[in-house]
Every structure is written in structure tokens, then in C-alpha cells.
């Protein structure tokens, strides 16, 4: 009936995807630091949000940036997927742009694939030379 304007307090949120069993929707867990009044220490407090993901590109474990929808899409879905920040298993270091795993760089397979092609052509040339030399050797033996 009535259109709800700015459905949630939080416009931008970063969270981790915990479930993708719903169609075109990702269940995202968002942690915020909350101060314990007695200990005066910050602890993570979790909250789950549902985000609209039209292309179903999230997998469980991705770190995801969500944007608040202008209008609430469904009873629970209040945000939509803006960007996948870190894809699980395929983290890309924003400083260098390369693939990374923990504290090491992953070398992609494409680099190693190029060299064998180059060396193959060289090997073929070598084979031709060797074939030619062997023919020359054989002829005198035939005769």
C-alpha cells in the first residue's frame, strides 16, 4: 500500500555470504563492532541481511558489498549486491591486481602455458635439422 522510503538505516554494508539456497538472493552476515559497557572492549556483533543477487554470482564465503534498495523488495530483502569484494578462493590483491592466496602470490597458469608453445616451435626446427642431417648420412650408406 504505502511506499517505504529508505527502508534501512544502513546504505552501504560489507558482509560475508553464508547462504545461496534462495533463488536470486544471498544471505549475508554483517559484523559490526559493539562496545561491551562493562569491559569497555569491542566485540563483533552479527546480523544477517538478505541481498538481491539477480545473476546468482555469489558463492558461500565471498566478501560482498551491499547497497540499500530504495524500496523494500520483499518482506526480508532490503539490500542488493553492489560488488563482490573478495571472491572465495580467488582473492585479487587491490594493490598489485594479481591473484593472491594468504601471504603468497599465486602464479597463474597462462604464463607457464606460453613458454611451451615457444619451445615447441624451436624443438620442431631442431628436429628438421636433425632429419636433414640423418638423410644426408643415410644416402652415402645406401650407395
Amino acid at each position, binding site marked *: 500500500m504505502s511506499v517505504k522510503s529508505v527502508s534501512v538505516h544502513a546504505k552501504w554494508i*560489507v558482509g560475508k555470504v553464508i547462504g545461496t539456497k534462495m533463488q536470486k538472493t544471498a544471505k549475508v552476515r554483517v559484523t559490526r563492532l559493539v562496545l561491551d559497557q562493562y569491559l569497555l572492549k569491542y566485540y563483533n556483533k552479527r546480523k544477517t541481511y538478505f541481498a538481491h543477487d539477480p545473476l546468482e554470482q555469489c558463492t558461500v564465503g565471498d566478501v560482498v558489498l551491499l547497497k540499500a534498495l530504495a524500496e523494500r523488495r520483499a518482506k526480508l530483502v532490503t539490500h542488493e549486491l553492489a560488488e563482490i569484494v573478495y571472491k572465495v578462493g580467488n*582473492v585479487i590483491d587491490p*594493490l*598489485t591486481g594479481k591473484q593472491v592466496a594468504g*601471504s603468497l602470490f599465486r602464479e597463474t597458469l597462462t604464463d607457464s602455458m606460453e613458454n611451451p608453445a615457444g619451445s615447441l616451435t624451436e624443438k620442431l626446427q631442431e628436429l628438421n635439422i636433425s632429419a636433414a642431417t640423418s638423410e644426408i648420412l643415410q644416402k652415402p650408406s645406401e650407395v
Partner: protein
Amino acid sequence: MPMKGRYPIRRTLEYLQKGDIVFKNTVKIMTVNYNTHGELSDGARKFVFFNIPQIQYKNPWVQVMMFKNLTPAPFLKFYLDDGDQVLVDAEGKDHKDISQHVKKILGKSEEVLRAEELARMVHSNPANFGPKKYCLRECMCEVEGQVPCPGLIPLPNEMRGKYKSQMKGTEV
């Protein structure tokens, strides 16, 4: 009896209130990526240990997230309201350098903070009486040197209207 933990001073209100960094209104999310081992991440680790509680205390509406051991180099990332992202490299830097840098690029300046404080002082007049949320005092009985609350200590008879009307009735 000393406080428990390493550097328990981090857990005092005075320490938290001493935080410098108040983010501009456009900053919504702050993300810190750092490693648990390694010398390069040392500054970032100290930043998380010492400065993050101060930042979160001063900016309660900014979401702060920490990620450990995802990338080889430590960095900070800020997500602003218009969709912009700010990347701050923290490799090899000292935690004081990081916090000063962040304050310079995304923190409110001293003048803005002073102006906001003045505006807040002007808005709330300490001479007003009202609910605790808006004013300092609710009733005159709370002030030292004034008549105490008749709910706790009965007023002397000269100040009670009931007694005065009774006296008037009996006299006349």
C-alpha cells in the same frame, strides 16, 4: 589491583575519548586487511590493536571490519557514500603514520570539530530544567542549597499549604 590483559589502558573511557579521528559524513565502511605474522604488517597490527577502538568510539555509525591473512600486503579500504572507494597502503608503515594519514585524508578538521561543538553547546542551554535526555536537571530540588524534594524529606509546616489553610480556619 591492576586491570587485566595486555595494555588495559585501551579499555578506559578516557583513552577512548582521546581518539583524534572523526570521519567525514560520507565515510560509511572501513576495512582493514592485515597479516598476523610478518614485519611488514607490524604497523597495521598495532593500528588495529591501539587505534581501532578509539576510531569506533568516535564514529559509532561507521562499520569497521578486519580481515586477517587474505593478501600479502596490509592495507586499509574505505567505502564512501557515493560509491567511491579509498585504498590506503599500510605496508611497512608505523601505526602513528597510518592514523595521521587517515586523519588527513578522511577525518574532520579541527575547525569543523570546534564549530560542531559550539553548535551543540548553543543548542543545549544548561539553565533549562527538563527530562534528563535534553537538560542537566529536572527539578530545583536537585540543586545543592535549595529546598530538598518533599518526596524524600517532608517540608516544614510554614511551607505547607494544607497546614496554612488549617491554621487560617482554626484562627478565624
